């Protein structure tokens, strides 16, 4: 009965308008590199307090879903993830875009983000409480193995050379040690520079490597033929936004894999769309019939990452609503907004405010459904934008990157980090060093170190604790599989070739 009432309260012109407004704001903020979904939700939250709680959350959830989805737009169009959740989208999305199929890549981003978002909402509706309780079983040993599992992805992302992929990945891990020691609080590698006390921020490095580095590389590689008008057939191909039935068949399994992994990883506090998308990309590559296409413009790779980062939203909300634990910045702000509306967050929320929670589920569905037309229309508009000469885009992107790096913390050190990362990104790109592992190392390095050291402290330097729970054992098996599988599959394919 409560779902029926919830539908009635959400499907009103005012509420739908609030969701739409949220979707549009989230889209603008999510597309701009450096402006994260947390920032978008934080900006909108004070405005929503003047509204009824349902209308307020309609706007906030619209922003949240849309910002995560639209981070993929800049990842596809200019190789600069709008939000960290879209890092993995650059692996294949940008390659598809470089072949002149930007609209098509944006279409996949829209369709599979919506699919992932709806999938996770359904999971949220069915299994909110039991799944959240499962996430509470994660302690420091499990977090350590989870981080290590993520780091094993470096092997998969290193297409050209394993040594090159690993060296930049470990460089990322080394960079993650800059700043205050996570357990002792002592300074590491920063001297007297207080701007680096929190460590090297992840977003400026991401903007520098993917945005500035890519633009410098394009300027360096520019050829006169690039400015020549394109033929009609190519322009027709550019116009296409929706995938064909055959393409959907290829993307269905990776889309489902991405959604499932997105929900699971999203539920675990401290993780999010960035990690889930990377894991989904790797798992989909392993089960794909065309693993060689991954990282080189694979539609499967793009679909799985897009589905995964949006599916993580439902996962994160599961922990936030059922247990009152904010898994990331987004859910922390949302829980803060709930308390401002006078609701008591925590395990009692699902019982005491059951009607309101039902309305949230319906709003999630509506927000995802609204992303569909808005996303597809924006994909069409983006195609028109791409008829602009490359150099005009390059010039503007360099400026957007600089402002984006600064906007996050209003810290000029972040702009300097972006500049240095941009130069490094250019040389890495020039000499075929993959950029993904560096981001992976920077993202997971601190999580890996902190949880390993915490486990050793808790166990008095004994490593037994690392192998003590079933979840740890499962994650160790996954780590071993992730590390060894590329070599085993290589060996099998070589053997098959030799036999044939």
């Amino acid at each position: 009965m409560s779902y029926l009432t919830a539908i009635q309260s959400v499907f009103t012109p005012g509420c739908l308008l609030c969701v739409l407004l949220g979707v549009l704001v989230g889209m603008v903020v999510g597309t701009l590199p450096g402006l994260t979904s947390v920032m978008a939700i934080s900006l909108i939250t004070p405005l929503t307090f003047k509204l009824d709680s349902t209308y307020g959350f309609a706007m906030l959830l619209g922003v949240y879903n849309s910002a995560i989805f639209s981070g993929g737009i800049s990842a596809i169009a200019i190789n600069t993830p709008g939000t960290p959740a879209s890092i993995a989208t650059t692996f294949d999305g940008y390659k598809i875009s470089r072949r002149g199929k930007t609209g098509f890549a944006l279409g996949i981003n829209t369709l599979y983000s919506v699919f992932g978002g709806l999938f996770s909402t359904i999971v949220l509706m069915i299994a909110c409480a039991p799944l959240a309780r499962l996430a509470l079983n994660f302690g420091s040993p499990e977090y350590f193995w989870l981080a290590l599992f993520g780091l094993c992805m470096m092997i998969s992302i290193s297409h050209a050379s394993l040594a090159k992929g690993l060296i930049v990945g470990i460089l990322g891990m080394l960079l993650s040690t800059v700043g205050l020691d996570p357990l002792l609080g002592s300074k590491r590698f920063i001297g007297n520079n207080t701007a680096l006390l929190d460590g090297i921020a992840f977003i400026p490095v991401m903007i520098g490597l993917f945005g500035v580095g890519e633009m410098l590389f394009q300027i360096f590689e520019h050829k006169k033929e690039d400015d020549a008008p394109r033929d009609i057939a190519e322009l027709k191909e550019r116009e296409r936004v929706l995938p064909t039935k055959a393409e959907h068949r290829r993307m269905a399994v990776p889309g489902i894999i991405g959604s499932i992994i997105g929900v699971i990883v999203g539920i675990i506090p401290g993780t999010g769309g960035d990690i889930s998308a990377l894991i989904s990309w790797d798992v989909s590559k392993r089960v794909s019939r065309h693993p060689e296409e991954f990282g080189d413009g694979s539609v499967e790779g793009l679909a799985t990452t897009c589905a995964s980062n949006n599916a993580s939203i439902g996962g994160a909300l599961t922990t936030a609503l059922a247990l009152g634990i904010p898994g990331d910045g987004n859910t922390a702000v949302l829980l803060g907004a709930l308390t401002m509306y006078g609701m008591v967050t925590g395990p009692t929320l699902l019982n005491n405010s059951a009607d309101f929670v039902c309305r949230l589920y319906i709003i999630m569905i509506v927000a995802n459904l609204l992303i569909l037309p808005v996303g597809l229309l924006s994909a069409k508009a983006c195609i028109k934008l791409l008829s602009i000469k490359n150099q005009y885009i390059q010039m503007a992107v360099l400026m957007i990157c600089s402002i984006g790096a600064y906007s996050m913390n209003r810290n000029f050190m972040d702009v300097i980090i972006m500049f240095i990362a941009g130069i490094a990104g250019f040389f890495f790109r020039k000499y075929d060093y993959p950029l993904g592992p560096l981001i992976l190392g920077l993202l997971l390095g601190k999580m890996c170190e902190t949880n390993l050291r915490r486990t050793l402290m808790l166990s008095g330097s004994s490593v037994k604790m690392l192998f003590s729970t079933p979840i740890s054992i499962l994650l160790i098996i996954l780590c071993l599989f992730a590390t060894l599988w590329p070599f085993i599959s290589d060996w099998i394919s070589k053997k098959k070739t030799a036999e044939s």
Partner: protein
Amino acid sequence: MKKANGNTVIGLIFLIAAGIIMYIANTTLKATAPAGDPGSRLFPNLACGAIMLLAVIIIIQSFKKPSKAFAGILADGDRRQSCIRTLLILTDLALFLVLWNFIPFLAAGFIFMFLQCMIFREKLLFSVFYSAGVTGVLYVMFAIFLKVRLNIY
């Protein structure tokens, strides 16, 4: 001996940088900490050791499979033009970041965009309008709508 190529140089940079960082870690960070914690320097040391090992592998590989040296790239006329253009854009970006600290964002942004247009040999009138347009739109979007204080001087 074969001529050093880009990968050799990058490998050497990694090797030397990791060596220096390892030295700094060992001289400035504590080796152990109380209650079973292996200390602050464990991870940096492990990472530096791995980087040095991989750098050696990359250097060896670069001699086996030589890539084109930077000097070779510069011998090509078109490539030389691209290289100079990239360096100029990078210098312009650095100049923008310096100016941003001393003059209002709108002025610094306009100069940055205008110089970029000049580097790309755009017409003067177009350069003025394009630079003013892009800077203005970004200022309105970030400073007015998103409340980011862009004037930091």
